[in-house]
């Protein structure tokens, strides 16, 4: 399973430690909300809105350096638009991995 990393954030922030921390704090606060939104749409069987929330999460997946996972998310988004839940488990494993990783960063 692909692991998240902070390569993009480190490259973006350079020597600017406060900005690096700001990005991490933003992900810490925004990621759980976006995951909750995804889950609530999914539990309501609103696949179109779920696809929208997957789309939104794709940015964080890419910011956290998960290139392969990004393509899984992209495929899952397409599946949802076709009323299919194929790749749901893979996508949710990505979310869990991201959440665990960001929780472990101070």
């Amino acid at each position, binding site marked *: 399973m692909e692991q998240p990393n902070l390569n993009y954030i480190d490259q973006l922030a350079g020597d600017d430690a406060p*900005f690096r921390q700001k*990005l991490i704090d933003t992900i810490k606060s*925004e990621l759980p909300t976006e995951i909750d939104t995804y889950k609530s749409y999914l539990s309501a069987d609103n696949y179109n809105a779920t696809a929208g929330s997957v*789309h*939104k999460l794709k*940015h*964080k997946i890419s910011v956290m350096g998960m290139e392969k996972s990004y393509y899984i998310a992209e495929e899952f988004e397409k599946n949802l638009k076709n009323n299919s839940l194929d790749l749901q488990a893979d996508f949710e494993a990505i979310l869990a991995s991201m959440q665990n990783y960001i929780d472990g960063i101070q």
Partner: protein
Amino acid sequence: MNSIIIDDETLARTIISQMATKDPELNVTGEFSSAIQAMKFLNEEETKPDLIFLDIHMPDFTGFDFIKTIKNPPAVILVTSDKNFAIEAFEYDCIVDYLVKPITEERFLKAVKKAKAKKDETPATVSVSASTDEKQPTDTANEFYVNIDRRLIKIDIPTINIVEAKGDYIQIKTETKNYTVHSTLKKIEEKLPSSLFLKVHRTYIINTKKIIDIEDNSVLIGKDVVPVSRANRPELMKRLNML
């Protein structure tokens, strides 16, 4: 160069805002999590932006919907996670570049350079469709948007029968529905084509094409009897194609 950022994701706004600091000529004057917030800003601010960083996928109102509401839009750089809108993006003259997230600084600065080149070509004067800045009615515009309960609702101008002033509000009566909007008769009069609409009374504007009959000092439009003031009656009579 003044710019604004419209993206419902805080992380995206934070990244764009930081990248903007790398160009000393670029100044971010506003960050908005929704297109509706940005439209209010554009209506209220005197200094209009030269550039908009715009997300496409936003709840309720997409980036493309937002562009359609702007008259004389400034340069727009689309910022999105979706590569599939590139073709649609270039149907809009105002869109100077298309950045796919996650954006790199190099790519960002290249896009800004394009926006600067566009600004040098044509100075932008931006106003939202519902803006009060627009003094001349646009006979070619077929619709405008109204803000009702934080939603922007499109109203097709030819479907409007009557607009009635009601205190701080106006009621727009169309063929199918009525809308109550916080605005004034003067503001909406500026949005309506004068070839079609006429103020017939202190509190009424009518679509002259929808008149069923005229009797004394009133006109019948749909099921509504609208008073016509003495001062406005001659102009109304001039508009009629009399046998």
